[in-house]
């Protein structure tokens, strides 16, 4: 366990690294590698508009007020551009949340998306639902939504777990495309086996930058890349020092 002085030093160091990395990426333009799950999102949006069927975007059970707060914001950011494009559809997207604390974030995201679209339709844009992320509640609700709401596709972000298999199975039976962005390894494994596309680990944070090249959040992906590279170098250095000491 780290003592408080080390934690303070690490926090200040991290802030400094992010500030420096931000300054570096401002002058950088770099092509990003293709991610199939993100490439699938505009296709799902187009299909939703063409077929007049809603797209389901799940923000998962991320909670505000704990270490998952930023994951909740990242999920909302990830869906913003899709929601903006869907503003011209007569079938507004259905956004579900697993924690009641994120209801307002989801509503705010849809409101901003609707307002920022010059071609927005008059359809009610705030189709936000709360399904508590306890046991099978959320998973069974998603399974039923598949047919009940005539979904065109499902984008399921969240912690993920084995129960995620149920809605993915339902989607497969109805031939509905699915994208999974789970933060837990068990959810990742289920997504890999059953979903059409999977966002691995921190790729959820990269979605806004990929969907909109002008988005200021595009820089965030580059900063994460730089910090990750630093961390890898640090791990290799630590490992090498340990090996040399033992030798």
């Amino acid at each position, binding site marked *: 366990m780290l003592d408080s002085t080390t934690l303070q030093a690490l926090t200040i160091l991290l802030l400094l690294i992010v500030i420096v990395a931000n300054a570096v990426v401002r002058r950088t333009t770099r092509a990003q590698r293709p991610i199939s799950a993100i490439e699938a999102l505009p296709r799902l949006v187009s299909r939703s508009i063409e077929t007049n069927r809603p797209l389901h975007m799940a923000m998962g059970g991320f909670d505000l007020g704990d270490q998952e707060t930023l994951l909740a914001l990242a999920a909302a950011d990830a869906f913003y551009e899709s929601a903006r494009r869907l503003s011209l559809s007569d079938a507004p997207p259905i956004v579900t949340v697993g924690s*009641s604390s994120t209801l307002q974030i989801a509503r705010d995201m849809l409101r901003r998306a609707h307002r920022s679209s010059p071609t927005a339709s008059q359809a009610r844009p705030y189709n936000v639902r*709360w399904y508590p992320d306890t*046991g099978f509640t959320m998973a069974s609700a998603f399974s039923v939504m598949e047919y009940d709401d005539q979904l065109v596709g499902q984008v399921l972000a969240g912690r993920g777990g084995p129960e995620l298999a*149920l809605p993915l199975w339902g989607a497969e039976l109805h031939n509905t495309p699915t994208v999974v962005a789970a933060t837990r390894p068990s959810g990742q494994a289920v997504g890999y*086996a059953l979903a059409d596309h999977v966002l691995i680990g*921190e790729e959820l*944070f990269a979605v806004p930058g990929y969907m909109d090249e002008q988005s200021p959040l595009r820089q965030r992906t580059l900063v*994460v890349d730089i910090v990750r590279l630093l961390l890898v170098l640090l791990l290799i250095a630590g490992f090498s020092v340990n090996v040399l000491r033992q030798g």
Partner: protein
Amino acid sequence: MNRVRLSVVLTTALVAGVGLITLVGLLVSESFGTLGALISASPIRALTDVLLRLAAAVLALTVLLGAINLLGVNVNRVLRGRTFSARLGSTVLVGSFLTVILVRIIDGINQSSNTNVILERVQVPIGAALNSLLFFVLVWGAMRILRRGLTWGRLLFVLTVLVTLASLVLSTTDSASRQFSEWLLSVPVSAGASGVLLGVALATLVAGARVLIGQDRQYGE
């Protein structure tokens, strides 16, 4: 020239300001020397406490918002659902919602525990049924991977699952297959899982730091 809305600037300043005050209040202790003493003498600590309590109170209220949302969405679906099953499902949900509230009120008056009976007789068996269904779905998922076409990644995934399951079911504690399976779980699988979790944690940290310095400002208008 990029135009920035005043409301965005104000929201960003509010978020970054509250975030920085809370960070300083929580992080800087007496061991920080002169800065620590300065912070202790200032009202920052007290302000941090107020902000944290305020956040907790607001979050507690959101449960009520959730219940209102649940009821509102399902009443709307009963009236304007896309399909008959949507209307039926929502009718059952609204009915159950009102029944549980009614039973709870009666429990309160009669000092009885009928709410627990509903939980034990309805919710627990449904959960158990879904659990057993889940097992078959996961097996079907493994088959689906191979049906989509064989790649090295998919083959490795299925083989890992099969070896782990087979060694758990068939082999004895000290057999080679059990040892191999344990190594598989404790070294490569654990390393992969740590990599995924570390990636998520890293991105979360960077996003948090960017919010604090006012770089990420997608919230509000």
